[in-house]
């Protein structure tokens, strides 16, 4: 090692790069502001959990978004452990680049009209890879409806009805109003949060918000 200064300089640059990148990544998304939105929850919304909640989680999500599918079991676990004090409101925000995202939202809403919204919701996320690029997604969703014991004739009518389409459009419009630009986007008591890195991180945020 003849040129110690160069080696020390090199080490400083490498450590600096790594620390700098980790620091800026942890500092988070500058888009997440402290704005608290008064997100309206109506009777038409898909809600589960507490009727008298201390905390409301609003999730804007897209059934065809891979990240949303990754978060689905995390949110499920949260609701299993915090369901007595927490309410989850699922809002549809299918993105334009997902060819079957909107149809999947219609299928979930149509199942909801027969009281099986969350069952269809879970099934759609679990099977996302099977239908995402399918040309016959609606047929697949009808099979799911049959497996869930739904009236398939009613499901077929509802899935293409204006009422169901309007529900989804209303969610999309509201998401844009609250400046949703990616999925999933979570709001805890109206405040948009940075997507947590797993169950533990989500739990920490919930504990902090519920205090």
């Amino acid at each position: 090692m003849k040129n110690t200064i160069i080696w020390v300089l090199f080490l400083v640059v490498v450590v600096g790069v790594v620390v700098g990148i980790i620091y800026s990544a942890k500092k988070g998304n500058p888009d997440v502001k402290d704005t608290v939105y008064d997100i309206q929850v109506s009777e038409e919304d898909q809600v589960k959990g507490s009727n008298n909640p201390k905390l409301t989680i609003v999730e804007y999500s897209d059934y065809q978004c891979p990240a949303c599918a990754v978060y689905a079991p995390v949110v499920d676990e949260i609701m299993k452990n915090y369901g007595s004090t927490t309410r989850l409101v699922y809002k549809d925000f299918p993105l334009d680049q997902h060819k079957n995202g909107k149809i999947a939202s219609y299928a979930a809403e149509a199942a909801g009209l027969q009281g099986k919204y969350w069952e269809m919701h879970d099934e759609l996320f679990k099977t996302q890879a099977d239908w995402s690029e399918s040309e016959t997604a609606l047929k697949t969703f009808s099979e799911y409806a049959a497996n869930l014991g739904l009236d398939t004739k009613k499901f077929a009518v509802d899935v293409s009805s204006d009422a169901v389409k309007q529900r989804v459009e209303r969610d999309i419009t509201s998401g844009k109003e609250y400046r949703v630009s990616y999925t999933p986007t979570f709001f805890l008591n109206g405040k948009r949060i940075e997507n947590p890195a797993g169950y533990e991180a989500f739990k920490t945020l919930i504990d902090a918000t519920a205090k």
Partner: protein
Amino acid sequence: MPQQSNIPRWLIALFFLVALAGFVDATYLTVQHFLNVAPPCYILTGCDTVTTSSYSVIVGIPVALLGALYYLFMMVFALFVLDSKKHHLLQHLAFFSWAGIIAAIYFTAIQAFVIKAYCLYCLASAMSSVMLFLIAQHKWRIHKRHMRAISRDSL
């Protein structure tokens, strides 16, 4: 044994700059991999289907981390050659750079033909690897030519 070499300084500097850029890029992807459950899908730029695909991990190790280690190794090795003046080791540097260009071609092909989506940071890394390969090969060629000239002169 320390040797003289006529490799231009700008070429050495370019090598370090490109390797550093590759290192920053791959480190960023590695940190994102470990900090995020899954990168979200954006309205404008879409989903990050590449860095979440099954091709982003090899036997449990994120490809981005392998990339970062590759760039770090290339910088350390090049610094060692420079420091020790053992320029014949440039042959090894040129050899190692094949790993980078093979990985660059493989992962760009996976993006183009299998996942059918691109990740900007992955393409930038591929570009860094291609440039490192070209510079490393060129440096070795310059050194070889130089050594041949010296041996001719000494005859």
